[in-house]
């Protein structure tokens, strides 16, 4: 918007041949983008209408893979698990990130150290973190159950019980992601004009009112941005599940992306896996479009 406003005079259209050198310079990047992004996406879409296995002759199967998908109880379970994970991670991550950002936006001693500590998990290798968390959750020798036992609570089979395993993964994801939310919220908080807070205080507003009526609304664009980013990210969860549970027990942590991987490389049903991929892509695209439109309406 600011760029448009700063342009003085009518915008001149430049003919192609006047700018051919610019296109020539762009061409390598465009070719790479085409090969690495557009081509695989189109190929996946086309594959989803076939029974390609890379081992046997491929046939066109129309919408069979999609019909099978919507009747596949394992896929339905994976969708349910993915939604469970997405909701479980996204909202607590945002709430914790916001609270940490607000706390560390104050002039409190050691705030830089706390910001660093809270952000450190984001920088940790996911696989290394997953291995450490698998140890934390170890039912008999793990430190988490050690703590529970000491305070008189029964130890829990965190990753071994179908009703607990996904929640255990969610806790790990929140630990890892809330640092990102905190940093983004901190940036947002520093953009809120101080005048608003001063005016509110003059009007007699107290801390809670100020937080709910000024801070939260002023951060709405950041919140929408984070919401979309986290939804897109959590829909694609794979690494932690691959390392910690391999989709078990009883498929309770099998997410759509993990099932895609298993279907493609475990069962060599690449066409069916491509159909799952396309459905996931369309879902994420829908969330992205909705989020972008909401953000545009808010003139972000």
């Amino acid at each position: 918007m600011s760029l448009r406003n700063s342009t003085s005079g009518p915008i001149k259209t430049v003919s192609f041949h006047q700018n051919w050198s610019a296109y020539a310079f762009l061409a390598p990047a465009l070719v790479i983008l085409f090969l690495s992004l557009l081509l695989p996406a189109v190929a996946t879409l086309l594959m989803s209408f076939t029974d390609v296995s890379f081992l046997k002759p491929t046939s066109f199967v129309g919408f069979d893979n999609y019909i099978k998908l919507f009747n596949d109880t394992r896929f339905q379970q994976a969708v349910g698990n993915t939604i469970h994970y997405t909701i479980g991670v996204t909202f607590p991550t945002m709430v914790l990130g916001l609270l940490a950002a607000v706390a560390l936006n104050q002039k409190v001693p050691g705030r830089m150290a706390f910001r660093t500590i809270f952000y450190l998990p984001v920088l940790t290798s996911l696989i290394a973190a997953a291995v450490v968390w698998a140890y934390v959750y170890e039912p008999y020798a793990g430190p988490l159950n050690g703590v529970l036992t000491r305070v008189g609570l029964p130890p829990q089979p965190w990753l071994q019980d179908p009703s607990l395993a996904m929640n255990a993964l969610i806790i790990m994801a929140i630990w890892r992601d809330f640092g990102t939310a905190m940093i983004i919220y901190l940036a947002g908080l520093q953009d809120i004009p101080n005048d608003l807070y001063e005016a509110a205080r003059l009007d007699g507003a107290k801390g809670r009112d100020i937080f709910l009526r000024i801070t939260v609304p002023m951060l709405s664009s950041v919140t929408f941005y984070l919401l979309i980013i986290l939804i897109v990210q959590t829909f694609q969860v794979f690494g932690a599940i691959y390392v910690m549970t391999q989709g078990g027990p009883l498929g309770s942590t099998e997410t759509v992306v993990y099932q895609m991987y298993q279907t493609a490389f475990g069962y060599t049903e690449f066409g069916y896996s491509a159909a799952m991929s396309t459905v996931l892509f369309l879902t994420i695209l829908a969330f992205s479009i909705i989020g972008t439109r909401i953000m545009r309406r808010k003139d972000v």
Partner: protein
Amino acid sequence: MKNDVMHAIKPTRRAFLSGTAAGLASLPILMSASGRALAADQQLVFWSQLAGSKKAAGEALEAAFKTARPEVALQSSLYAEPSQLNEKMLTAINGNTGPDLIVQHWDYNLTYASGKKLVELGKALPNVKTADLDPSLLAYGHIDGGQYSMPLYGTSRGLGINRKLISEAGLNPDKGPQNWAELREWAKAVTKRPGGGMLQVSGIQLYQNDLEAFELFTLLLQGAGGSLLTADLSAPGFAGPEGVKALTFLRDLVVTDKITDPGFGVGPGGMANPFNQQRAAMLIAGNYSTNNALKAGVEFDVVPFPKESGGFTSLVDPFCFAVRAGAPNQEAALKLVEFAMSSEQQVAFAVASKNVPALKSAQQNKDVQADPYLSKFIKTASYAPPTAPATPVFPRMMTLVARGVQEVIFQKNTPDKALKAAADEVQTLLKKG
């Protein structure tokens, strides 16, 4: 001058787009040509998953081959897990590139063979006498009437025991359980659950992942007189009375006898598994269990897995050579297979890796038998049936059966219903092929 040149080129949008399209179109041709040029060199490209405890044995085999066949330039790549090698293989097959030779877990080879991507080795290796090989191991490479992979070695399954915990319970570790009733008594006797509360020591660590759940069920199924598939591999055989009996026995161990907790042992495995932490007195052991157990200080031993009414059963799990159809250096690949199947190399590999050799004579070799654990795993291998569920739908079948087993252990389903549901799905898969 410059303007003249620019004018002469006459850049237009159409020319630019045509040029870009032509360039893109030529890329696959160039890439394919260069790929073929690289593949056509004289190197024998060998991909394997001879990693971990098999690494030294694999390296020794390759070194010996290089000495014996200096004319073959061997270029080998190592993959830590069969699944990693599989990912690499599938993408390589898709790109019509890939190795001349692989050593891979048997079920992946069946998948490649079902797509006619492997050379039939029965005819291609006239100097390897299949009658000299362990029939149980060999059966896993036999599909569509041909021998598409050749076992380099295998692992077998027995009942791994912690001698200390077994002795403390007043049982004789030198004489394992002889039937299911004794297995049950052993499991109950060694389970430690003070006050009926938290499990301290499990009688048997049942499984760590789907594959182990499947193997446990298969052993019990065989022990009850059943088999996974019918003799012609055209239909599931696991959902009959033998399968129900096997799964009921397993459920009773967990639910009635509480010899373990559901899910106990599920996790990353290795040194972290409960058996290696001395929190389980028994487990279904393979050759691979030995090193970690000994490293963890467990007084490890292995005894045969009992059948329901006496006698023993086992499973073997071979890792096999396969030669890629269309590979440029098939001749050199076959030379390596032949070399590795020789008596000398079979013995050397078995001693170094502690795995069961495919060659029957090597199994009885004095150096192989001198290893106290390897000799026991060779003994347990002798109890394995000479047939195998050698079907390309095996990976799916394994997942489905393991899911059914876990549903029963977690009391989400009954044995007959869980097995019936799994069998229906397996039947559909088998029909589809």
